[in-house]
């Protein structure tokens, strides 16, 4: 009797869990790990390695020459691709001054003023060097209209040689310390939720989906250099050509859910589920695909919002091969700031939706 029960437990319970939302503790654990790992565009190695560590034991990944991480499951056509990006916004060192300070150039689009006067971390081949972003000198002449002020980083040295001795050179990347912090109401704040949430959703989907139910090839790609022009996705798209039936970019839905924003579009309230990012600055999802996605979500009782926002997505890089792009996001407040904010229920639902699409569409 005990043997029968054990057998039932081993074979049935995992199947019952398939399609369920990942438990909050698991979402916390995966997302927290990825958020607290640094990886400015072009230097995504630590994040890629973290994703690999978080994937289930069966997952056999490959890394292409661009640096994208691939996980291929199932077999046969059609091929369906999901892409989430590994990189985050930050800075690269452009020059080292005679006084030892660094001149940093933004990698990605954001308000550099939010970094001024905050702690800094310089990432080098020899490790991480702490410093500070030099506060803007209010007495200095204002930068020309339309230009950003020069961002400088002080690493506590007084001359160029001292800085170079720390292993810092042109091209070193710079971020600020970051923490994943839970807030009230099942929400969380941190920096680089864009797109560590998408990366988390793919990890969680890989952990929870039932590979035996895959009726075709499913490829998860964790891409590089999205923030500086979808470069990794372009390499992946070129590698696959016209083969994919669809691509799903799993990336932020920048939401106007804040008293500071105009709400004439982009209003996807936090906590009400993932969002079909049906239109943005890089792609328009064919309406029939939006309808199919909505029908699938309804059938699985997964909440789904539909909206239009700003920004570009990795799936659009597949457009020139004629591959339909059906991007899906989750609502994010305060995008590309040190204080991005999400609702964890949306992350869990997003992971579940990815699994449902992989298994059922």
């Amino acid at each position, binding site marked *: 009797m005990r043997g029968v029960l054990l057998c039932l437990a081993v074979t049935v319970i995992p199947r019952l869990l398939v399609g369920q939302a990942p438990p909050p503790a698991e979402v916390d654990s995966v997302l927290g790990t990825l958020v607290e790992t640094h990886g400015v565009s072009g230097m995504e190695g630590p994040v890629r390695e973290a994703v690999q560590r978080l994937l289930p034991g069966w997952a056999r990944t490959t890394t292409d020459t661009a640096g994208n991480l691939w996980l291929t499951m199932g077999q046969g056509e059609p091929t369906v691709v999901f892409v989430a990006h590994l990189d985050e916004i930050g800075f690269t060192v452009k020059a080292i001054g005679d006084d030892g300070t660094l001149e940093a150039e933004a990698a990605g689009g954001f308000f550099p003023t939010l970094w001024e006067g905050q702690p800094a971390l310089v990432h080098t081949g020899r490790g991480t060097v702490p410093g500070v972003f030099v506060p803007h000198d209010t007495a200095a002449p204002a930068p020309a209209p339309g230009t950003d002020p020069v961002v400088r980083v002080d690493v506590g040295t007084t001359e160029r040689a001292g800085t170079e001795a720390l292993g810092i050179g042109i091209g070193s990347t710079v971020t600020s310390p970051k923490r994943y912090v839970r807030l009230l109401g*099942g929400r969380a704040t941190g920096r680089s939720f864009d797109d560590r949430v998408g990366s988390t959703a793919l990890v969680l989907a890989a952990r929870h989906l039932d590979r035996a139910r895959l009726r075709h090839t499913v490829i998860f790609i964790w891409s590089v250099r999205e923030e500086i022009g979808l470069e990794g996705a372009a390499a992946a798209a070129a590698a696959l050509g016209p083969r994919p039936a669809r691509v799903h970019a799993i990336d932020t839905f920048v939401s106007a859910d804040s008293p500071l924003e105009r709400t004439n579009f982009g209003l996807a309230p936090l906590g009400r589920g993932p969002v079909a990012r049906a239109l943005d600055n890089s792609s328009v999802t064919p309406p029939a695909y939006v309808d199919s996605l909505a029908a699938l979500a309804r059938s699985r009782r997964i909440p789904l919002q539909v909206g239009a926002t700003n920004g570009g997505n990795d799936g659009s890089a597949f457009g020139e091969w004629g591959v339909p792009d059906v991007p899906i996001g989750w609502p994010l407040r305060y*995008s590309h700031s040190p204080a991005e904010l999400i609702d964890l229920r949306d992350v869990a639902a997003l992971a579940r939706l990815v699994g449902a699409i992989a298994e059922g569409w």
Partner: protein
Amino acid sequence: MVALAFLFVGLVSSPAVAQRPDPALPELADRLAHMTAVTGYEQRMIDTLIGLLPGAMRDRAGNAVVVLGAGDRRRLVACPVSEPGFIVGRVREDGWLTLRRAPGRVSPLVERQIEGQRVTLFGRRGAVPGVVAVRSVHLTRGRGTAGGPFTVDSAYVDVGASSAAEVAAAGVGVLSPLALAKRPQRYGSDLLAAPVAGRRTACAALVLAARRAIAEQGMVPRGESVVVAFVIEQDLDGRGLGAIARTRGPFAQTVLVDGGPGSPGAVTRAPDSAAIRWPALGPVARWSLGARYPATAVETTSLAGADSLTTALTRWIGGAR
């Protein structure tokens, strides 16, 4: 009454009183820099300082005070603990909070540094994290930007709540103090960056000097006593210092230890105008521990410089001129 107080201090400052080993200055400065003491809401910091100083007491104003020696000629050394910050001014029905500046001077630099950053609110049930809202860069593209530079008057604090009831359940409400989430950064060979790092490090130096004096009975010259005070509300007309002057003075001499603009770690000494307002302080000298990037979230001072401040303060307590 005063005699009783001196007796009490005399008892607690005896070598028989166990005192934990002195913390190292870098660790103590770092610990204090992690703490928040918004003007008018400094009592957690005061609790910590009282815990560090055997025999210290809280006075009616809320200052932490310890008296060394029992002589009639009194000298005062004081370090302010307050910092600029904000309080919750209103809780909206949708759960967002709006702010008011805490009393006293709040530099525009301090206001700017909370935009789009994580903050800590100190509610009745403990610390609650939140963020100060900022416009999403994506949603500004192709659109005119509204308004001028950020000020606290246009700040919305997001603690993740969706209703005022949720905020209240977390112990946060009107008057809860708030400040930038503290994340002191050690960098370079001996630098510490944090909001009010100069002031926190100067206070750490005074804590260590006072602990040495407490441990080493008889350091204060015969016939003298030294009042060591960590004073509140310095940026609100120096209320804490004023209370010390009126209740503990007159003093033969006062040293006000603080951070200030300057080369990191350099200690400058200059006369201070507090002597004019409170003659009971006697001649007042301000000893400033120099800090780079003052009044910002990365105000930077040198811990090696603070070590020399500790030495100088110890000597001053011991009667050196």
